[in-house]
Every structure is written in structure tokens, then in C-alpha cells.
């Protein structure tokens, strides 16, 4: 795209991100004092890019493993942004309970952390010491025999056994929020798990309805099966109390104020745990979080906005900078498929995709140019119909592996016009575009959608009427769950799943748990369905990967919806006394409390707080 085009003038990152009042008073305050602005005209003379890159390389965290020098003890200071609805992960109507539950309730499996590099979704035993699959539809977990519950009534260090697992599974199957992803139910016949049994105290057997490749991996995910003691039914109130079976104990919880996590002295592998615990106050306000981090009262700041990274590092040179792994969500632009809709024709959907300038969009929302200008190593990726963060599964739309359909991801207004002409559609297409303007998908989401609308209209091929439906009363029933029964285009979010299969099945398969979601289309797509079914039943990892790639190449042509343009890696800042920061990298942060948080330690020699 030429440098003087409308979008390069208009889609200035700063304007796009700061133009909204919804960006919050914190940003406004920072803007006032100038610390959020890295375009300072009084800045030091510009250094050559090579020099900047060398400088960034010198301070970019090398994820050195310092476990050998680790000194045990101390309480880690961090924060969270929201309270938990309650503390029962198996019956709460909100996932906040699962996020907290993963600190103290064990799971059968856990994700293996990446060692100094991004994790790849591999799993290993947590409560389970061994897994066997005697036939494709039977999975047997052997439980470790040295696992006990917390030393607190009514459990008092009782061994964790197979009856606890059966109890937890039954509760999950009855009340779990995400039960439809796994449990076969009368109204969910495609659920893969049929039954559970416990032949002895240390053995649990799951019977599957069909060979289901991601099943064992799913047992590592914190939003599925967390193991709770059977005494949680009547013995204590699990909505307000916890009994740990993992490395951490919830020692103190003050609603809407703080969570205090402490080391579990009865954890079977307690020597692996380096810290004594975590203090986690609830700080919902961004400016307050940033102030506490700058004042060294928080040791890390996971929510630091990318536009604040460079300036904060410049202000506080002692801070360490780490480059994060690519995320695994790709949100969606999807189509109304009412009779007479132009989007029933795949050529129109392909044309719409060709109007998106993916690089500009990514630059706008991931601060790519600014990071590059300052010498930071940043990698942009385009999403295919799965997120670019699904390493191994993702097919790069710009790569040769995508084949001929890769062209549908490249901005090409002339080609789009030809496709629309061939489809016999009168241009500009006058229709609606809908997205929620409230904060359910985060404060930046409405800007994402606004830019997509702008890109479609800039081509002259679309004339769109903006609609901002109410999330509960309009958006969910009339767009998101309307099975395509709406007019025009909608932009929305998707759930993050631990395994690519769950995403594919839920969103793209006509029998998936999100089967009402619009972009599957009324009649579905038999070939897409078949590929999804094949991959989920394929137990050979390489063959399965290839099936998922084949599916991506296929839907790149049919373009059932347009995935979000893409993403770039982000950066996080932390104080240097956090030992082993980012060395053991979680596949899923919420599910990683037993493997990543246990490896962090406090390096007192570097403490300046």
C-alpha cells in the first residue's frame, strides 16, 4: 500500500487507540504527564536503528534459568483485575472460579511448560502418574498414591483417590459451565465422554463415545475437570472455602480486596516450590495498577498496554523486558445469511476478505512500527481460520503451504471488484455492520471493528450502516447466536480453547456446542464437517496436524467468515528480582499454576523496592 494513502494517514495508531474516551482516565492521566507519549519532540537525537537494536538486545530478557541459585521463601507481589463469582470451579456460572481453582485444586494432567521457549500444548501427569489407552475409546488414568488433601477439616490430609475424581467428573457433567465441550448428554450427542468408573482407589477409566484425540490433553485444562474432594458436598461450602490438593493453598480471601496464596506443606512435590506464596490484591483500575508497578509494589505487570511498554522502560531502565509468545485467539467477522444475502455467495465473502489491509490493522493495534523503530524484535503474523498462535497447526496465509487460496487474505481491491462483478452483485453493497460498543470484549474491541468497517468502505465496494447492538438483548440472540439470520456483517469475539479441536468443532462444525453461532451457516459445509470429524478422531499426531492444515486451506477458499487480520508478539515488563521469570512458559496461564508459578523465586540480591 503506498505510504500516502488514506489509511496510512487515517489509521495512525495513536489516533486509533487514543481517540476513544473509553480508553480510560488512566491513559488520559498518563498522556497529561507525557509518560505515555513516545513521540516526544524533545527526545534525544535519533540513534541509528542498528544501535537501537543492539541496545534492545542487551536488555531483552534472555530467560536464564537460575534455579540452581534459587533461595526459597518470600511472598510474590502481583495483582488481579476482578473478583471471583465464587470459589467452586465445578458449579460456578463463571470461569473466574476455574481461574482461582487451578491454584489449589489439582487436575489429572497438566500442560508441560515450554523451557525458555513457548509451550506447545504437550501435557504430562499431574494427579495422574500414568495414562493408558487399551483401545481407542478407553482411557485409563493411574493416580499417584502420595497425593493428599490439605490438613484442614473434614479432610485432614486424606489421600486423594479415584472416588474424588469420579465425584468431580459427575459434578462437572451436571453443573460444569463448559461441560458440553466434553460430556455426551441427551442434548449434546456429539460430546466425546460417555462414562467414568473407578475400578480401584487409584484407577479411573473414561469410556469415550468415539476415539477422541485431544481427550487426555483436555484433562489438563483448568476450565474442564478440576479434582475436588467429595467432602465438598456437605463437608464444607466450596463456594466460599477451599481445600487444596495442589502446590498452593488459598490462605486468605477478602472479597473484592485480595487473595493470599501460600505454599501447601502437604503437597507431594513441595520441594519443587520455591516461593512461600503470592499476595494478589484486586486492582481493577489500569492507572492504579501502573502506579503500583512503577512504585515496585507489584513485581510484574501482565496487563501493561503495549503503547506503554517503550516509555515505561525508558522511564525505569532497571525493568526487564520479555517477549511474549503469540496468542491463540482469532476473533471473527461473520456474515448474515438470510435469503437474498450477497454473502451466501463465497465470492462475495472472498472479496470482503481481500479488502482488509492486514498489516496496517496489526500495526495499528500491536504498535508494530513503534516497536520496530525502537529496535524491538517483533513478529507480525496473519491469522488463517485458526489463530496464528497455534504453532504446528497454523498455516501461514502468506506462505506457500496455504496454496492458491492464500490470495484471499491479501488486500487486492481490483480482484475483489472482479469477484463481486462475477457474483453479479451491485456495488457498493449497501448493508449493515454490527458490533457491540460496550466493554464485554475489552475497551479496544470497538476500535478493531471500526477499522475493519473503514477498510471495507475505503474500497468503495461497500457502503455500511453501523449498528451497535446491546450485548445481552440484541447482539447475542440476534447476531452471535442467530445462525446467520441477520442482515449484513457482524464483528465479534470467540472463546479461547486449550486445544484447536475444541475451537474448530465448537465454531465450525454444524453439530458443535456453538452450533447456533452465525458463521457456520444454516446448512453447514459437509466437507468442512468431515475434515473436523476426521482430525478429532485421528490419534496419529502428524496425520491429525495435516488434516487441520487441509481444513484451513479448504476454508480459506470458502471463507465462511473472515478471521481477525492477525497479531504480533507482545512485550511484558518485570522487576529484576523475579527469578526465573518466563523461563518455564505456560501453555495456558490459568492452567499453569502448578508448573510455572512453582519455579519462580525471589532474588533478594537484586531487590530495590
Amino acid at each position: 500500500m503506498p505510504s500516502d494513502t488514506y489509511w496510512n494517514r487515517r489509521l495512525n495508531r495513536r489516533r486509533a487507540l487514543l481517540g476513544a474516551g473509553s480508553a480510560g482516565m488512566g491513559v488520559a492521566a498518563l498522556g497529561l504527564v507525557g509518560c505515555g507519549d513516545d513521540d516526544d519532540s524533545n527526545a534525544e537525537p535519533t540513534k541509528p536503528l542498528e544501535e537501537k537494536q543492539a541496545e534492545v538486545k542487551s536488555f531483552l530478557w534472555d530467560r536464564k534459568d537460575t534455579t540452581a541459585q534459587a533461595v526459597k521463601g518470600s511472598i510474590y507481589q502481583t495483582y488481579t483485575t476482578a473478583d471471583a463469582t465464587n470459589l467452586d470451579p465445578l458449579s460456578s456460572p463463571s470461569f473466574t472460579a476455574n481461574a482461582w481453582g487451578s491454584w489449589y485444586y489439582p487436575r489429572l494432567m497438566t500442560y508441560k511448560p515450554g523451557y525458555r521457549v513457548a509451550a506447545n500444548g504437550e501435557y504430562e501427569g499431574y494427579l495422574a502418574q500414568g495414562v493408558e489407552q487399551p483401545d481407542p475409546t478407553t482411557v485409563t488414568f493411574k493416580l499417584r498414591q502420595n497425593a493428599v488433601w490439605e490438613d484442614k477439616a473434614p479432610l485432614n490430609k486424606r489421600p486423594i483417590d479415584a472416588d474424588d475424581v469420579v465425584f468431580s467428573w459427575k459434578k462437572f457433567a451436571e453443573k460444569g459451565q463448559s461441560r458440553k465441550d466434553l460430556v455426551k448428554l441427551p442434548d449434546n450427542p456429539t460430546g466425546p465422554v460417555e462414562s467414568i468408573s473407578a475400578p480401584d482407589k487409584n484407577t479411573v477409566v473414561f469410556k469415550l463415545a468415539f476415539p477422541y484425540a485431544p481427550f487426555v490433553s483436555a484433562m489438563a485444562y483448568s476450565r474442564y475437570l478440576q479434582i475436588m474432594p467429595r467432602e465438598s458436598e456437605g463437608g464444607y461450602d466450596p463456594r466460599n472455602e477451599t481445600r487444596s490438593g495442589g502446590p498452593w493453598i488459598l490462605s486468605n480471601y477478602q472479597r473484592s480486596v485480595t487473595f493470599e496464596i501460600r505454599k501447601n506443606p502437604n503437597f507431594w512435590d513441595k520441594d519443587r516450590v520455591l516461593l512461600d506464596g503470592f499476595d494478589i490484591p484486586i486492582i481493577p483500575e489500569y492507572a492504579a495498577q501502573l502506579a503500583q508497578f512503577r512504585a515496585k509494589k507489584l513485581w510484574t505487570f501482565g496487563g501493561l498496554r503495549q503503547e506503554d511498554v517503550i516509555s515505561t522502560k525508558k522511564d525505569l531502565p532497571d525493568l526487564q523486558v520479555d517477549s511474549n509468545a503469540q496468542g491463540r485467539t482469532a476473533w471473527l467477522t461473520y456474515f448474515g445469511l438470510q435469503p437474498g444475502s450477497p454473502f451466501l455467495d463465497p465470492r462475495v465473502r472472498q472479496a470482503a476478505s481481500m479488502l482488509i489491509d492486514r498489516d496496517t490493522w496489526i500495526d495499528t493495534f500491536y504498535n508494530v512500527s513503534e516497536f520496530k523503530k525502537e529496535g524491538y524484535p517483533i513478529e507480525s503474523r496473519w491469522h488463517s481460520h485458526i489463530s496464528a498462535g497455534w504453532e504446528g497447526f497454523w498455516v501461514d496465509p502468506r506462505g506457500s503451504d496455504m496454496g492458491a487460496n492464500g490470495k484471499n487474505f491479501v488486500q487486492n481491491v481490483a480482484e475483489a471488484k472482479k469477484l463481486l462483478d462475477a457474483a453479479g452483485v451491485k456495488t457498493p453493497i449497501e448493508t449493515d455492520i454490527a458490533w457491540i460498543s460496550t466493554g464485554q470484549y475489552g475497551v479496544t474491541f470497538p476500535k478493531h471493528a471500526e477499522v475493519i468497517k473503514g477498510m471495507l468502505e475505503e474500497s468503495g465496494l461497500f457502503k455500511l450502516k453501523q449498528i451497535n447492538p446491546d450485548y445481552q438483548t440484541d447482539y447475542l440472540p440476534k447476531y452471535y447466536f442467530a445462525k446467520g439470520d441477520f442482515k449484513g456483517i457482524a464483528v465479534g469475539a470467540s472463546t479461547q480453547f486449550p486445544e484447536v479441536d475444541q475451537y474448530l468443532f465448537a465454531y465450525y462444525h454444524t453439530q458443535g456446542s456453538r452450533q447456533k453461532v452465525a458463521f457456520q451457516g444454516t446448512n453447514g459445509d459437509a466437507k468442512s464437517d468431515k475434515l473436523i470429524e476426521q482430525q478429532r478422531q485421528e490419534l496419529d499426531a502428524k496425520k491429525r496436524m495435516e488434516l487441520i492444515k487441509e481444513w484451513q486451506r479448504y476454508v480459506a477458499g470458502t471463507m465462511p467468515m473472515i478471521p481477525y487480520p492477525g497479531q504480533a508478539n507482545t512485550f511484558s515488563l518485570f522487576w529484576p528480582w523475579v527469578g526465573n521469570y518466563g523461563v518455564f512458559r505456560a501453555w495456558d496461564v490459568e492452567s499453569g499454576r502448578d508448573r510455572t508459578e512453582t519455579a519462580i523465586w525471589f532474588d533478594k540480591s537484586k531487590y530495590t523496592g
Partner: protein
Amino acid sequence: MGRYVIQRLMLAGVTLVMVSVLVFSLIRVVVPFFYADAVDIVAGEYGRTDEARADALRDEYGLSGNLIGQYFKWAANVLTGDLGESLFNGRSISGEIRDRVVVSFELGLVGLVSGLLFSVPMGIAAAVCQDRWPDYILRTLAILINALPGFWLAILILTFGSLWFNWAPPLKFKYLWEDPVQHVKIMALPALLIGLTPSAGIVRIVRTQMLEVMRQDYIRTAQAKGLNGRAVIFGHAMRNSLIPVVTVVGLSLPNLIAGTAIFEAIFVLPGMGQYLVSSVGNLDYPVIMSTNLIFAVLIVTANLLVDLSYPLLDPRIRY
């Protein structure tokens, strides 16, 4: 006086019943009809994919029965002192309120007192120096303070504090009886900021009232008798000018207690504001009903106390 108080208490009872019926109708009838119910909101998109589970949750939370019966059940419990339990975590609402109201009350009261200590002398000084430069400066300052939202000032203080002095308020809340020093460190700044904005209005009310009283005959008489200015202002004018101030202050106290949510969020305080905001966000009906009732009681009580205080300030007023 006794008859008046009894009448007022009876009216207060009617007011509280009307408030509770209105709130119940809004959150149990109007909001679910036009927007969503508690299960829709908390279960979100997952709830919409699992209707059987969503219906089971409605049964579990007691949302699927007769509405009028539910109201009377709640009211009967309240009359026996039981404010009920949160839908989502089963926690006793009375217990939560007991823990939180002290924090909010302290914030509101300290804010109010500090605001008064600041605004009453300013108002008097502005009136005494009417249309001279101290008056202009004080009035300008009052308008400026009135125009600056307290939470915005709080964010500025946090931002500059961390930028320039490496300072941020303590994160670990302690009650006064647990650790008085830490408590004061945590509470002082938000309490002062909470009192700042209403104090600007009080400056202007005090000034206006003082000017009006200063023009009264009895003030002129006092001056003619040869009393010095201080005696005239503090002995005669100030007391008579305070009736509207007492009204405003009395009525603003419940608002100060209820309106602390943003400060609680910024300074990590376990007050009533956060409790109410989070319960509204989740449509936690029993919590909304009970906290609204508590705030209504506070407002009705403050009104009554304000009215009863008038005879103390002006002996001409009798009930």
C-alpha cells in the same frame, strides 16, 4: 416533638416499603424483560449454549418461582433481621455489610469532616471579604475543585506519585483495630479526596448564607452595639447561616458512603460501593435489594436527623 417523630417514623416505613417494591420491580421485572437476568449475565455466552444448565441455575437461585411470593419472602426475612445471602456465593449479606459499612462510613465521615474543616472557613472568609481579591480567589478555587472529579485527582496523584516519588498507596488493607498506622496510611488520601468535591459546593453555600445573614437587622444591631467583627461573625452570623449547610451536609453523608466505589477500586478498599457495584454488575438480586434498603434507611435517617437538628440551631423552629 414526640408526635412529629412518630409521624416521621411511620412515613419512613412507608418510604422504605415503596423503595423496596420499586427496586424489586426494576431488577426482577423490568431489567430481565428488557435486558437479561442474573444467569444470562453471569453465564454469558456459555450459558446461551447450554440452556438446560441455565434453567437449572435459575431453579438453584430461586429465580423461577412466583415473583410476588419471592418479594414477600424477602421482606419477611428482612423484618426478622435476615438480609439473605448472595445468589452466587451464598455469603451472608448482613455479614458482608457489617464488614464493609465501617469502611465506607469512615471514608464518608472523614471526607465530610475534612471537607467541612476546609470549606466552612473558606466560605466565611469569602463572605467577609466579599468582592475583594480573597473572595475572588476562594470562589475560583471552589469552582475549580467542583469541576475536578475526585477520582481523576486520585489517578493524577497516583500517577505523579509513582513517577516522581516512587510512591503508591499501600495495597494491604487493615482495619483500624488491626493496624492503626497502616489503616491511616491507606484511608487518609481517599477520604480527603472524597470530601474535596462536595466541599466546593459547601464553600459557596456558606458564603451565600453568610452574606444574607450579615445583612440582617440583628447583625447591624450587634455591630452598632460595638461588638468586634469576630464576635459578630462567630457569635451571631455563623450559627444562623448554618441551617442550609446542615441540610446539605446531612443529606450528602449517605451519598458519600454510597458513592465511594471508584475510590475503593483505585485504592483497593473493601467498602460498600464496590459491593453494590459488583452486585449490580452480576444482578445479584438479594444483595441489590438489601444494600438499597440499607442506603434508603441511611437517607431517611439522615433526613430525619437533619430536620430534628433545626430547633437546635434556630430556637424559632418548633415541631
